[in-house]
């Protein structure tokens, strides 16, 4: 799908559905982040490196995902 198709779909959708999609994307992003952090840890990344990649401190990554590993 190209960018123009997404624009069309956004313009046509009902705001109720559109807002749900916004939140759905956030939830999806969290799930992807969780999975990627687990993957990075399995590959030997330090919390510092993961924090750098995500643009947050290592403490905040560890607080959020520390239970994973």
């Amino acid at each position, binding site marked *: *799908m190209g960018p123009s*198709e*997404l624009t*069309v*779909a*956004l313009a046509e*959708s*009902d705001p*109720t*559905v*559109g*807002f*749900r*999609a916004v*939140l*759905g*994307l*956030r*939830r*999806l*992003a*969290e*799930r*992807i982040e*969780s*999975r990627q952090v687990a993957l990075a840890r399995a590959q030997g990344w330090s919390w510092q490196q993961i924090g750098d990649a995500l643009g947050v401190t290592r403490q905040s990554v560890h607080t959020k995902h520390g*239970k*994973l590993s």
Partner: protein
Amino acid sequence: MTAGSPWTAAGSAYHPWTTYIAAREEARRRGDRKVGTEHLLLALLSEPDLSGVLDVTIEEARAALDALDLEALAAIGLDARLDLPPLPSTPPAELPRKPTFRAVLKGRLPMTPTAKKALEASSKGTRRGRAQPGTRYAAKNVLAALLELERPDPAAELLARLGVEPAAIRERLARV
């Protein structure tokens, strides 16, 4: 009531923080950063005081929420196969029945304004304000507050999706 528990008023086994913790774990599981009304509803499905009031399993409710998300993403043109497994969280069976300060504060997530209001309704019809000695809480007040909500509130959307009629639940709730 547990002696020494700061949360539980005499004669009342229910405390809204039990619901908060269960709701927060549902939020975490879904990847939400805030505890919303739909999470409170999921939490109340496992509330013993309300058994038999809501004729829905937690699995059905979770699946309904996931389906709503995938449909919404599809509606804006995103591939519904982007679905991913839920995040790690504490399952309802392992949550404390009587929450401690520590359990509430550990891994806490903020609530949406509507969720906060609904949870505060737990002490409706009793003494107002914060947990004073003698404040009585009831799970059914929280559910009643959730049933009042209208779409597009997430709890109302979920109930509609599940085909649950708020009026029918209110009737059953009156008999609890």
